[in-house]
């Protein structure tokens, strides 16, 4: 059937689930003050948007996310390239990253609070730290797996080490670098919420937890929906950027799949 060929069916499913939510809450099948109908949540969400309160809420979170994520990209890609290119750097840092990486990032929050306090510095550090590892890993494995023939082609044309890095290794590794950046984008949203729930007086994470604690259930749900939309928006922007930079890779891999 034609609805399965586009995402139209997928949007219908979302609408259907929202309808089930609405009916379940209104009919009293699930009767609880903690479970208001979606329409009321939507009104609360719309009020937050129209009043401009949402912007004030989300802006500090976005600021932390962007700064933390940008730091992770800069440091992750730089060290990743050095680790991928120089065996010595790889041998020095690889065991350390393998030990640090499996520890869930939220476990570092208490330590970060001890050293950096409760302010933005701690939150930005936590976001940057958590986003750092997927970018680092993907960058160095991308650099290490650059085809030797691509490098030897550059050598036969007389390119030096710097030019080979710029014109061959970085473009060749970029699809994998982007994979790491995509994974980290999701992590950045998780970490901004967690760090704001643990210690904050503003931001969307603080808002959701605070709404729950003061029994403003509608606002709590509205906050969660906001996060869903924010995550969707960030991913949409990322994919647009990725397609722009890596269009050659999208086209090439699509052809291989045919």
């Amino acid at each position, binding site marked *: 059937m034609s609805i399965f060929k586009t995402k139209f069916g997928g949007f219908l499913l979302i609408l259907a689930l929202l309808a089930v939510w609405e009916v379940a809450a209104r009919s009293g099948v699930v009767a609880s003050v903690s479970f208001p109908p979606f329409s009321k949540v939507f009104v609360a969400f719309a009020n937050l948007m129209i009043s401009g309160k949402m912007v004030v809420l989300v802006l500090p979170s976005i600021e932390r996310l962007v700064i933390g994520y940008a730091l992770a990209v800069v440091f992750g890609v730089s060290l990743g390239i050095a680790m991928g290119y120089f065996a010595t750097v790889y041998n020095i840092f690889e065991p350390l990253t393998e030990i640090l990486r499996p520890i869930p990032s939220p476990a570092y929050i208490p330590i970060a609070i001890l050293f950096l306090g409760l302010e933005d510095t701690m939150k930005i550090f936590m976001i940057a730290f958590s986003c750092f590892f997927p970018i680092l890993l993907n960058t160095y494995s991308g650099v290490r797996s650059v*085809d030797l*023939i*691509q490098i030897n082609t550059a050598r036969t044309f*007389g390119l030096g080490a710097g030019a080979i890095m710029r014109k061959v290794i970085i473009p060749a590794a970029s699809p994998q670098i982007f994979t790491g950046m995509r994974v980290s984008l999701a992590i950045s949203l998780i970490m901004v919420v967690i760090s704001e729930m643990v210690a904050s007086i503003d931001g969307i994470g603080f808002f959701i937890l605070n709404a729950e604690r003061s029994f403003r259930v509608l606002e709590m749900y509205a906050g969660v929906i906001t996060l869903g939309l924010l995550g969707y928006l960030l991913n949409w922007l990322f994919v647009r950027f990725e397609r722009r930079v890596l269009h*050659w*890779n999208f086209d090439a891999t699509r052809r291989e799949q045919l």
Partner: protein
Amino acid sequence: MSLISIRNVGKTFGDFTALRGVSLDVEAGTFVSMVGPSGCGKSTLLQILGGLLPASSGDIRLKDTPVTGPPREMIYVFQQYNRSLYPWRTVRNNVAFGLESTGIGGVEIQRKCAEYIDLVGLSGFEHHYPHQLSGGMQQRVAVARALARNPEVLLMDEAFGSVDAQTRAGLQDLLLRLWREYRFTVLFVTHDIDEAIYLAEKIVVLSASPATVRTAIATELGYPRHQVTTRESERYLAHRRHLYSLVFSDSAADPALVTA
């Protein structure tokens, strides 16, 4: 003085000896094919010659200058065109890749790209990406990229080994036409004895691993060559018989200095 002089070159990888005592001279402007049993070290020798791999022993000179890295005058063309072309660059920018490191200006680069893309018959495909082209067209891009540098020596490593027979015949004739026009020197490594005879003036036969030069044969088939008539000629068939028996017999000859 020969353009290329290889003296007593050896190459070992750990315990494995790939080349032993290889000596060979190549005169400027000649078309030389190198054949030998598979895995005998033909490509290793070519990579050492191109400065992509250091020799373990011996001496390689290009115009009496020792080869220590990739020399400007030599361009290496790989068999794996799909891995040698850069997928993020269009046809034109792949051809431009080899020119960007020469210090010539952007306008001149554009002019040369157009000229050499036209020479290999790919005008109109300048803005295509490699994955949008067939294998034969991709290898033509690689040939255009190499020739745009005006190399004195073209090192071709099984360059037409990954395309179908018809495309291969087309690439062979294209290469011969360009060689006759520009008179660069070609060292063409191939496992295909027929291809070696069809293309070359001189054929160097390597022994089984560790490779040494067994013999060199002048084809004396004249140019231009023709895919049908050349391959039917008595002399061609005689070379074919001789070379097949040489390559498939395992007796190693004394490493002798051979002038190709």
